[in-house]
């Protein structure tokens, strides 16, 4: 079976671009803190969601709705409503992370297919099987801490479909378990759906040297002519002991296109592209590339060479944790 390409859409225009570019599946979220890409100007209101899903279905593509932040205490109704509205809009599945919300969805919307978000950081077969057995999860998005052999081992031990990230921004920390952003800005992926939010970023350029600060902390300093990464704090340049540099992760982005055959062999069902915050042009280009790759794999042709370097953060690529030496 051909591997499923799952692509991001931050706007209805990006959703249409993704579908036209050959995405099998598109994922998106409502325009509030229920989704983990709650960025200014992004995401779907209810009628845009309904219309987007209708458009995708008319062209044979599926839509997954990410409701993958952790509901805040006293305000769970917002998340409950998102689950109900996603089902009413015709979502093919909802992507959830919080156990309270999974439990709610399983009890109140049993007919709605449930995927486990990467934000749940289910990193081993026991945990995945636990989510499947307890909440009826049909697919898990694997955290970006696993190597390809580990993914193969997981697939050997579970009947749950697995989806893995193949392109885009890379969390170096276990997703859904990181409070770095709220420590510095008061806003976190788990609670607000944002990491290192733009509202707390400021750039300062002097004599060609560009300082990028987050919450007043200098995260990055870029010299004349060097490419400039967004100041995501785990990818910043810091000092510790006698050393200075990218202590946590280089400002690189994930590109696992060369690993597609191995991921296929490892039993992976779907390949996920990160980037709901990126433009429709990014979405279209990346989708076309990966769709061509999985189609080639299916037909037994050699994989086309990638052309995606310019789209990457810092314009550098990594295969991330898929190769064990990354650790």
């Amino acid at each position: 079976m051909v591997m499923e390409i799952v692509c991001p859409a931050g706007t209805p225009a990006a959703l249409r671009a993704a579908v036209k570019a050959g995405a099998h599946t598109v994922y998106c979220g409502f325009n509030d803190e229920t989704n983990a890409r709650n960025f200014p100007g992004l995401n779907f209101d209810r009628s845009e969601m309904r219309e987007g899903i209708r458009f995708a279905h008319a062209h044979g593509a599926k839509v997954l709705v990410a409701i993958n932040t952790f509901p805040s205490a006293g305000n769970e109704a917002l998340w409950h409503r998102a689950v109900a509205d996603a089902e009413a809009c015709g979502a093919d599945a909802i992507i959830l992370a919080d156990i309270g919300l999974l439990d709610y969805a399983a009890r109140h919307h049993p007919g709605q297919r449930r995927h486990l978000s990467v934000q749940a950081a289910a990193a081993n077969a026991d945990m995945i099987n636990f989510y499947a057995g307890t909440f009826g999860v049909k697919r898990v998005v694997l955290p970006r801490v696993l190597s390809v052999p580990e993914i193969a081992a997981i697939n050997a031990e579970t009947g749950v479909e697995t989806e893995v990230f193949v392109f885009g921004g890379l969390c170096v920390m276990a997703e859904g378990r990181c409070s770095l952003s709220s420590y510095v800005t008061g806003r976190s992926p788990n609670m607000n759906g944002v990491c290192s939010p733009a509202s707390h970023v400021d750039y300062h350029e002097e004599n060609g040297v560009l300082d990028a600060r987050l919450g007043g902390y200098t995260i990055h300093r870029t010299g004349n002519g060097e490419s400039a990464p967004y100041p995501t704090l785990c990818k910043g340049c810091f000092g510790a002991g006698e050393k200075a540099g990218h202590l946590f992760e280089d400002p690189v982005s994930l590109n696992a296109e060369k690993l597609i055959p191995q991921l296929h062999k490892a039993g992976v069902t779907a390949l996920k592209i990160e980037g709901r915050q990126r433009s429709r042009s990014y979405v279209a280009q990346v989708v076309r590339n990966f769709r061509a790759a999985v189609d080639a794999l299916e037909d037994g042709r050699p994989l086309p060479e990638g052309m995606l370097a310019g789209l990457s953060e810092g314009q550098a690529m990594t295969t991330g944790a898929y190769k064990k030496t990354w650790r």
Partner: protein
Amino acid sequence: MQLTVGPNQFFWPAARWRDFYDDVAASPAERVVLGELVCSKRMPFYQDCIPGAVERLQGAGKAVALTSLALITLKRERKAMAELAEMGVEVEVNDLTALAYLPEGAAFSVGPLVNAYNEGTLGWLAGRGATRVCLPPELPLQSVETLARKGRDLGVEIEVWGHGRVPLAISGRCYHARLHGRTKDNCQFACEDDPDGLDVRTLEDQPFLAMNGVQTLSDSFACMAHQVAALRDAGVTALRLSPQSHGFAALCGWYRDLLEGRMSAGALVAAVQAAQPDVRLSDGFLTGERGVAWSGARGAA
């Protein structure tokens, strides 16, 4: 309000580890969680000391729990967690994987690294047998109040991060190994050199974070001295103190004095700062604009 000693997050030699829990046995804390939280590679160095420590602590009248790892991926880690569930001591779940090994209905507690953000999750955990939940450190006071109320209804004790460097992230990658140009498999236990974590500073030399193997912590030490009254009003039943290499027994004593009204918040802060002159404190997750904020800086006392 009770005092809980959280699991030591750092890598200490066995002798220091043993001495530390001897001190804790003599401290005024009611509850102690111990075992390895951060990295399974550290376990062989001191795991033989654990049963003795559990016995001493229980003998001193402490309630004792054993923590799960914070991130369980490898086969041997899964095996170790399954064994943990069979040791006959309460387990503190810090990775939901550990739940999968606990018999249905068995009582357990939940640590701060499990995402218990709302009433639904708290209710579900209680239904599974959770009797105590230490809330994630990033929760604001408003959430703590709501969850403490819910906890009271459910019969679940609600605990809050009280003092110590805040665990902010966990990764598959070891930063200590990376700093020393080694792979995780060949880390040579570089983290052992930093018994309270290694300071991470910005390019402008501003203190920022601390690295501890696969874990990233805050540079600042959380200190809930100024928040104790609000937490007690909210119905929080325990404060968690996180082990540090120096002066921990005294710290437990000060917090006990604070809770009993024998010491003011200002005096506690002054004592902490006298004992650790370059310490930076924070309590911003609870009431500030951001985690690193410190209410003491506003002149509160």
